[in-house]
């Protein structure tokens, strides 16, 4: 409040809400490079594509198994594979944490989550939540944005420890309306926590459009409220997501704090297998996005660039099919969960009271 400051009359109609940078893009819808350089090698791009495809086929397979009554209600990530895999590729699974909501399986596969467990998740087996070994990943989160306060605490804690790790936290457009998103982002800004808030704007929160969700033009601009950068990237462009998250991760590692990345994508499938989009989704909107399919885009890119031909793509298809077959086979071999064991995971030590309640579940094999 310098004394010199000029007086201004209040006229708010003119107040420009914000000046955002343009959306980050590398590939156009037909897979043509819009810049001279792609941000990763062709080999890496192919690996990314393979995992995107694995995610896509996993979701398709799961939906059909669910339709046969062999799986629980599930939320496919069809159409969003570039967003989650591109982000996962930009962090380091050895040092960095992946904090999912529930529609990120493709990205989780890249980070190291086994396909077998992904299938077991969809059959309702608790072992899918027991993130294996040293994998730096939190379990799936049923509460929208419920993972964000934890993710910020984790990032803050890593920073305090001098640990090089950063946290990649993923959530949806609907998640931005939750108080927990706000409180988490604000604390992250204050603590300059090494975290990337990756918002998958897939157009919908079940049947609620983004326009009904918020009046802000972009979700990226919500970062303005927290004093750190927010930016949009083409969420169906593997290169754009990768480059943007890579930059956000660099900032986090350099102690520059959080970044909000809005990956603009689209839910080509159902909200969940219990959902019927025909009740609310404009057909033409869907068709528009079918042409923006991130897999198609990479295929066109590879072919145009001569990275791989149709035969090569077909080979990858076959290999992915085989991966799925094996994983689903293994998943079915998983023994049914023992309630005595799982219900025993409430505390490190069981109280007398709980022990007594447990006798009913205890097969006596661990008296």
């Amino acid at each position, binding site marked *: 409040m310098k004394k010199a400051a000029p007086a201004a009359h209040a006229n708010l109609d003119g107040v420009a809400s914000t000046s955002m940078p343009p959306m980050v893009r590398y590939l156009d819808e037909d897979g043509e490079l819009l810049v001279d350089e792609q941000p990763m090698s062709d080999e890496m791009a192919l690996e990314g594509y393979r995992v995107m495809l694995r995610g896509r086929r996993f979701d398709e397979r799961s939906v059909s198994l669910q339709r046969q009554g062999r799986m*629980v*209600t599930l939320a496919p990530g069809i159409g969003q594979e570039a967003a989650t895999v591109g982000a996962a590729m930009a962090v380091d699974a050895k040092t960095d944490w992946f904090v999912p909501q529930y529609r990120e399986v493709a990205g989780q596969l890249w980070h190291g989550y086994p396909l077998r467990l992904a299938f077991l998740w969809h*059959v*309702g*087996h*608790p072992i*899918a*939540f027991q993130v294996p070994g040293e994998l730096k990943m939190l379990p799936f989160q*049923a*509460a*929208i944005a419920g993972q964000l306060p934890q993710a910020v605490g984790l990032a803050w804690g890593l920073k305090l420890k001098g640990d090089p790790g950063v946290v990649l936290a993923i959530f949806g457009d*609907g*998640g931005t*309306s*939750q*108080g*927990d998103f706000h409180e988490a982002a604000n604390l992250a800004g204050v603590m300059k926590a090494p975290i990337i808030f990756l918002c998958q704007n897939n157009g919908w*929160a*079940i*049947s*609620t459009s983004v326009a*009904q*969700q*918020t009046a802000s033009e972009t979700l990226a601009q919500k970062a303005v409220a927290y004093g750190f950068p927010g930016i949009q990237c083409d969420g169906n462009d593997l290169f754009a997501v990768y480059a943007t998250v890579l930059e956000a991760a660099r900032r986090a590692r350099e102690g520059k704090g959080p970044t909000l990345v809005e990956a603009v994508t689209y839910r080509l499938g159902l909200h969940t297998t*219990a*959902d*019927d989009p025909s*009740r*609310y989704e404009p057909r033409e909107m869907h068709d528009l996005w079918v042409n923006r399919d991130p897999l198609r885009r990479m295929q066109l890119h590879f072919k145009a660039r001569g990275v791989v031909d149709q035969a090569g793509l077909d080979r990858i298809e076959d290999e992915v099919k085989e991966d799925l077959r094996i994983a689903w086979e293994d998943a079915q071999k998983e023994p*049914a*969960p023992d*309630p005595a064991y*799982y*219900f025993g995971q*409430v505390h490190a030590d069981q109280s007398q*009271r*709980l022990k007594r*309640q*447990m006798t*009913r*579940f205890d097969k006596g094999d661990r008296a």
Partner: protein
Amino acid sequence: MPELTVVEAVNQALTLEMARDERVIVFGEDVGLSGGVFRATDGLYGKHGAARVIDTPLSESVIAGAAIGLALAGWVPVAEIQFLGFAHNGFNQVVDQLARVRYRSAGRFSAQVTIRAPYGGGVRAPELHSDAFEAHFAHAPGLKVVAPSTPYDTKGLLLASIRDPDPVLFLEPLRGYRQVKGEVPDGDYEVEIGKARIAREGTDVTLVAWSGAVQVALQAAEDARGQGISVEVIDLRTLVPLDAATLAASVTKTGRAVVLQEAPLTAGFGAEVVATVQEEAFFSLQAPIRRVASPDVPYPVQMLEEQYLPNPERVLEAIVATTRE
């Protein structure tokens, strides 16, 4: 009379009341064009449009809080929380704000608000979509908590709740949504809030249940009959205010009681039922009141659901055991 499911009864009550009272406004996540994830609000958007049937942002706290303000402006809000578990995200607005509007203002203001939420397990839904969290809301002075189990009571109690001048948390049994059918009159009728229902008459043991667990109780009562035990099943229908008189009358007659609670045991609403029954009918009691509940364990994933939830076998065990004491 036509046979309806519970969710159809909800829809019929909403349809009737929106037509009858223009002040009624329905809002929540996905209640509009799509008609709600369980179709509870199906057709309302088409009839009344975006002014009275509103899809809100994904924000439970402001859904509950805004309902207060809408009521102050003269509307009669019926807000949907998509699953009760997510009312935890607006717990402060429900328990600390909504419930206290009249009291805080010493009567100057009031909130004729109904918050509807499906809840309870057994439908292979994930945690928080399935947890029976009613106890958290039963300990909130100013808030009435209604939890019917049948289509008939659902329609009549929902109409009574919407018309109640004070806030009501209206809990709908997810398990009963499509599984429980029953006759429901087309017209307008109310079921009184605060009155329990004798779901089945009996003489040996009183079995108390509410919401989705009532079906389990009825099954257990039927099984007990096979063993020569006559069980009286009480469907509470309203948790707050609790109908102590009906409980006392039944237990005075039977001398024995089992309380069936879907939620984990400790500090669940069943404890209040036990405490009240022994206060009201202690000298008629011939055995301790037994509780059948889920263990003190969070809601499990689908493959463990059946072992977790109280089932007729466990209830029957308790019934038999109490008659042996």
